């Protein structure tokens, strides 16, 4: 039965569509079915935090319709279809009452946003933006509003803060950390980004959290643990992502922080693969573009029958804060060494060097951001 069955890809985000595109470069014949819980419109998630800067609404950020993707890629698309289980012994994907046979199954269903449980009656004004449909809902709700409060000062919180200021909205950012993008940027670089965002008019409320969100006038009032209040029309919750692992766990696949796969993107179960934001690849959970594109290329070959391991190179992350261009390549968690920092105002060059002077990671901001590619060449690749 499996001989005739299609390759089934769950998810039509950047991972799912990139995989389908790469697979079609290798194999134009094998039937491919793509399953998605949403509308299947193609878009690039990293671009969701650039809408105002680029003058694009949700339609403007959409790259291609579902029909056009199906045609371009030569695949069948099942939209608004939610996976409820995986029967890997039978090689079947379960979609409610329906069963879909697969020869090979790829899980590219992404990550869920973390939602904080916060008191108050203003929850209907709290938005998380994790896909284009979320973005569309957010933009509609924002019509007529001028003030946005952002919970979270990570990469997404900072990118949205910059983008909304570029759209001339009032922006307040609330986060428990004492710096922006903790864990991603070394402190001098984080301070530079924060300073430039402040120069742009973003108001930061760090080292505190939102205790309550209640309706107030036309919008909501946020009560912070610090005793301050912030009034806003809408709230963006950008406190982090968690790879979707629950269905995989129930199906008996090995899971850790993500769905565990080896460098060939194979899960613990035969003929089931995973990539993108849901996957823990060889111990790495990297919710960024470059790793998933590398995985899509390797997996396309494997699906065609030529088992290929992904090789992660040096993958700098570009942070889309145009007021302070920033790129970072975090050193490995277990790396021994120290940050060496040079700065000129809010232009920072921070190099993480080991005892022998090798660069194992870096962060560059402002006028030094253009050095990102030359620096990336000096950093040893993740998979040597």
């Amino acid at each position: 039965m499996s001989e005739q069955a299609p390759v089934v890809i769950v998810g039509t985000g950047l991972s799912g569509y990139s995989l389908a595109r790469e697979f079609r470069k290798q194999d134009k014949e094998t039937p491919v079915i793509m399953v998605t819980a949403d509308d299947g419109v193609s878009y690039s998630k990293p671009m969701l935090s650039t809408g105002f800067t680029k003058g694009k609404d949700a339609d403007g950020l959409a790259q291609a319709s579902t029909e056009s993707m199906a045609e371009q890629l030569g695949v069948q698309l099942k939209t608004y279809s939610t996976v409820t289980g995986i029967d890997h012994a039978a090689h079947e994907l379960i979609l409610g009452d329906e069963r879909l046979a697969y020869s090979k199954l790829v899980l590219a269903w992404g990550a869920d946003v973390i939602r904080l449980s916060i008191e108050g009656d203003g929850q209907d004004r709290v938005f998380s933006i994790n896909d284009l449909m979320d973005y569309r809902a957010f933009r509609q709700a924002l019509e007529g509003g001028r003030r946005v409060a952002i919970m979270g000062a990570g990469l997404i919180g900072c990118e949205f803060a910059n983008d909304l200021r570029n759209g001339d909205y009032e922006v307040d950012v609330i986060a428990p950390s004492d710096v922006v993008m903790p864990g991603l940027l070394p402190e001098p670089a984080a301070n530079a980004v924060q300073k430039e965002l402040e120069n742009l008019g973003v108001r930061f409320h760090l080292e505190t959290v939102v205790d309550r969100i209640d309706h107030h006038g036309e919008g909501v009032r946020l009560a912070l643990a610090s005793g301050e209040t912030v009034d806003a029309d809408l709230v963006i919750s950008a406190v982090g992502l968690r790879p979707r692992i629950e269905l995989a766990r129930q199906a008996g696949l090995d899971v850790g922080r993500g769905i565990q796969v080896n460098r060939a993107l194979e899960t613990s179960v035969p003929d089931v693969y995973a990539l993108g934001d849901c996957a823990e690849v060889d111990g790495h959970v990297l919710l960024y573009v470059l790793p998933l594109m590398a995985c899509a290329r390797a997996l396309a070959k494997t699906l065609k029958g030529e088992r290929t391991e992904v090789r992660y190179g040096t993958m700098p992350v570009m942070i889309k804060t145009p007021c302070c261009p920033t790129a970072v390549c975090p050193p490995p968690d277990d790396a021994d060494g120290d940050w060496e920092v040079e700065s000129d105002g809010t232009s920072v060059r921070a190099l993480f060097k080991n005892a022998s002077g090798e660069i194992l990671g870096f962060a560059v901001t402002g006028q030094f951001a253009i050095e990102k590619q030359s620096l990336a060449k000096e950093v040893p690749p993740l998979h040597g």
Partner: protein
Amino acid sequence: MKKWQCVVCGLIYDEAEGWPEDGIEPGTKWEDVPEDWVCPDCGVGKEDFEMIEIG
């Protein structure tokens, strides 16, 4: 002269314009763009660009 688009972020490389910020002169054909050039907006490599028709 052709245009190439980044499949990730939509950035367009126009051969007629080149990319002077990275030292790529106007008129540089795509195949002559250095193999290690990456998308200035999102960092993906040349393999993630596709040729687009000019509208």
